[in-house]
């Protein structure tokens, strides 16, 4: 046989082998079982350690691999018993004693007891990487008995109970210390593993590909219907949508708003819309002229096309904020002053402010949220009527945060979601003067009376009294307009029609309640 012919046969044989293998791949491969839920998310997580991670995407993977002392009840912002079956608090709000249930076990079969709770919080405070900031006043944690744990605070912290439902308060198995390296409290190990007592545990994590959760056979609660949860990373929203429509995904998270309208017509999927406590708002740098002028800020608030932004940018899937505390959280004032797009009013206030125009204000934003640019363009268009030119300044997100922290901006945009269901998350973070910068008070707003009021509300435990104090502070704030209170966004989720049992809790966005869900 000539060398050419033998080469040709070799090429044909190789091609046939490759084709056969591809066919094998196409025909073989297990389909999605009925007791498995497949969720498509946009980005992978960096770290799974509850004491380290600050992102909702990571919490979505791990929240149900752990349990906490308390959990949110259903779709409400109220908390109820979880690992703790009951609790008491001293009249001065400084001592909290939790009685634990005695049937909870970690995924390795060891008991969840007071020692584990003590270890978890000591670890959280020692690591001090962000989640610990929800517990600013915890002084000591003691295991009073095997199933009783006492927290002693050095200052009253009314949101404390709610903060215990936070992902950072997830109870970690003390055996993580067997994996400790160089005093890291097991961070290197737990960054990629779970060691909790929740209904699921992490079985596999292939970076940038998928997370596989399987049942924790030692879970002390009702066994979930879904035995496996596969969380796939599908970065491109079009690809995510295609996979949902083809049935390769059961849930597609974070689909762009413009896709939802078309998906609503589909007979394969449901588009669900829920209220959320997530808001978008514009920071006005109150330490810079002319934004340090109250009348000028009021003029800007009246020159903002709220309805236009809601319909044009959010496609109607948002409502205008009314005050800093969102609707759905206690403390929200439904009758408080609300600005609307009134150009004549804006011009009159501009004249009263005695600020000379034309002038230019820089609007800082990043690619982080695709809505930020069109919002800036809307402001640019409406502020022009006042003789104000808005210069759009787009930066990398990390750089934008640096500038925000240093106050190097005129206007900037941001989103905010609460870590716990208490108005403290808005009123104290946004308006307390010791939170200037990225920590919360991003308008660098300073009003002594507001400062006193919000600090006072943060120290008392009576909710009715706190409501009144926060209400008074909100009236002053709305008059002084340190922010443009834009929108309270809805939460939209697209699921296959056969997926049942999803409950949206506004505090647990993208943390799907897998243990209560099923597929028909």
């Amino acid at each position, binding site marked *: 046989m000539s060398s050419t012919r033998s080469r040709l046969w070799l090429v044909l044989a190789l091609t046939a082998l*490759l084709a056969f293998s591809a066919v094998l791949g196409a025909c073989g491969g297990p389909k999605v079982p009925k007791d498995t839920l497949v969720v498509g998310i946009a980005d992978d997580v960096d770290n799974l350690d509850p004491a380290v991670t*600050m992102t909702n995407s990571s919490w979505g993977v791990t929240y149900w691999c752990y349990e906490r002392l308390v959990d949110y009840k259903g779709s409400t912002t109220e908390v109820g018993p979880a690992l703790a079956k009951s609790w008491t608090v001293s009249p001065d709000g400084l001592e909290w004693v939790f009685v634990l249930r005695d049937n909870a076990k970690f995924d390795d079969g060891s008991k969840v007891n007071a020692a584990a709770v003590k270890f978890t919080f000591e670890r959280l405070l020692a690591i001090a*990487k962000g989640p610990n900031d929800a517990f600013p006043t915890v002084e000591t944690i003691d295991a009073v008995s095997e199933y009783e744990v006492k927290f002693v605070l050095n200052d009253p912290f009314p949101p404390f109970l709610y903060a215990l439902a936070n992902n950072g308060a997830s109870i970690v198995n003390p055996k993580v210390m067997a994996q400790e390296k160089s005093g890291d409290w097991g961070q290197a190990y737990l*960054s990629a593993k779970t060691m909790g007592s929740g209904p699921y545990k992490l079985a596999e994590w292939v*970076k940038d590909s998928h997370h596989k959760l399987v049942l924790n056979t030692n879970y002390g609660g009702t066994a979930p219907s879904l035995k496996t949860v596969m969380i*796939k990373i599908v970065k491109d929203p079009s690809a995510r949508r295609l996979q949902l429509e083809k049935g390769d995904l059961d849930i597609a998270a974070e689909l762009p708003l413009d896709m939802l309208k078309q998906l609503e017509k589909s007979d394969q999927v449901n588009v669900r819309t829920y209220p959320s406590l997530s808001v978008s708002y514009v920071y006005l740098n109150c330490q810079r002229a002319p934004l340090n002028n109250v009348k000028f800020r009021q003029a800007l608030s009246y020159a903002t096309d709220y309805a236009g932004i809601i319909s044009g940018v959010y496609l109607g899937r948002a409502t205008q904020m009314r005050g800093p505390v969102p609707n759905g959280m206690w403390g929200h004032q439904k009758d408080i002053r609300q600005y609307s797009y009134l150009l004549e009013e804006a011009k009159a206030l501009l004249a009263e402010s005695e600020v000379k125009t034309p002038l230019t204000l820089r609007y800082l934003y990043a690619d982080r949220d695709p809505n930020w640019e069109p919002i800036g363009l809307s402001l640019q268009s409406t502020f022009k009527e006042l003789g104000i030119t808005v210069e759009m300044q787009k930066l990398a997100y*990390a750089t934008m945060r*640096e500038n925000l922290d240093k106050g190097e901006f005129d206007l900037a945009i941001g989103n905010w979601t609460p870590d716990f269901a208490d108005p403290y998350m808005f009123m104290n973070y946004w308006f307390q003067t010791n939170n200037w910068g990225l920590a919360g008070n991003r308008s660098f707003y300073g009003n002594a009376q507001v400062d006193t009021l919000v600090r006072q509300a943060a120290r008392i435990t009576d909710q009715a009294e706190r409501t009144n104090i926060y209400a008074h502070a909100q009236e002053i704030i709305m008059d002084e307009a340190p922010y443009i209170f834009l929108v309270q966004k809805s939460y939209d989720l697209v699921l296959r029609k056969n997926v049942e049992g999803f409950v949206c809790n506004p505090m647990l966005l993208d943390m799907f309640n897998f243990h209560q869900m099923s597929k028909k």
Partner: protein
Amino acid sequence: MSIGNLVIRRLSLLVLVLFGVTLITFAVSHLVPGDPARMLVGQRASEETLAKIRESLGLDLPLHIQYGRYMSGLLRLDLGTSIRTQRPVAEDLLTFFPATLELALCSIVLAVAVGIPLGVWSAVRKDTAVDHISRTYSVLGVSTPLFWLGLMALLVFYGKLGWLPGSGRINPFLAAVPRVTGFLLIDSLLSGNFAAFGDALYHLILPAFCLSFVHIGQFSRQVRSSMIEVLGQDYIRTARANGIRRRSLIYRHALRNALIPTVTVVGLSIGDLLGGAIMTETIFAWPGMGSYVVDSIGFLDFPAIMGFTVFVATGYVLINLLVDIAYLLLDPQIRGVG
């Protein structure tokens, strides 16, 4: 020049290249305003928390000390720890690089297997319909936006026809393939898991095709123009006059010389792909280096950015070395030079 001398010279130049590359990358990444400590702990962290994190990461040290520490680690082949993932950068790169390399090599093999014969055919049948079609394809290939092509391919072959899978390297419901090399095609064969091998190949088809689409056009254009030039040379005319068969004339005499500039283009393409084809990886959810480095840049993850740059720079130097070795093998005349 002998191959041995070439290798020694190039490897010694690698040290200088890495020094330059690390210095420039370090300077540029630190000039960008931003605080990776703030990115790590979230925006509501207190100043005390931030200060502690900066100290633990060494970010509070003067820049020249930070750079010195990094270079001293590099001499021990330690690329540092990623601020974002908290894992050794080397471990991260070894996690993501095989996926990128596997896709890159499959794309290049496809592009070479199709592009070179297409270029030869086009040159030999110059100004015929075959040549026109080939040249039209070349223009389309280099001008088609990869993002659009990927989405269209996904829509047609996955969405409408259902012939090919929608994302990832392998069906996650298959039994996990034990990781040996990180290359799924190799690891699945090593473990005797032919279903996984087939599935991995199946998942490679669409992204590899999209990536190769551009390069097929590039390679065929290059080969065509080189072949036309070579086929016009006197020695080819002499060989033809001496009765050498057409097939032998084209493939043994002409193509070998025409391949020399093509080898450069192929080398550059491999180097380019090794950096991670971010568009393709995004559309096909391919867990490669492209996404890793984009996320690292957004996070200002200095060790990851530096590690990636060192990695890719080393890759480019080695690829250029292989290209030059290929030159020497293809054209013995070059061995006498230098």
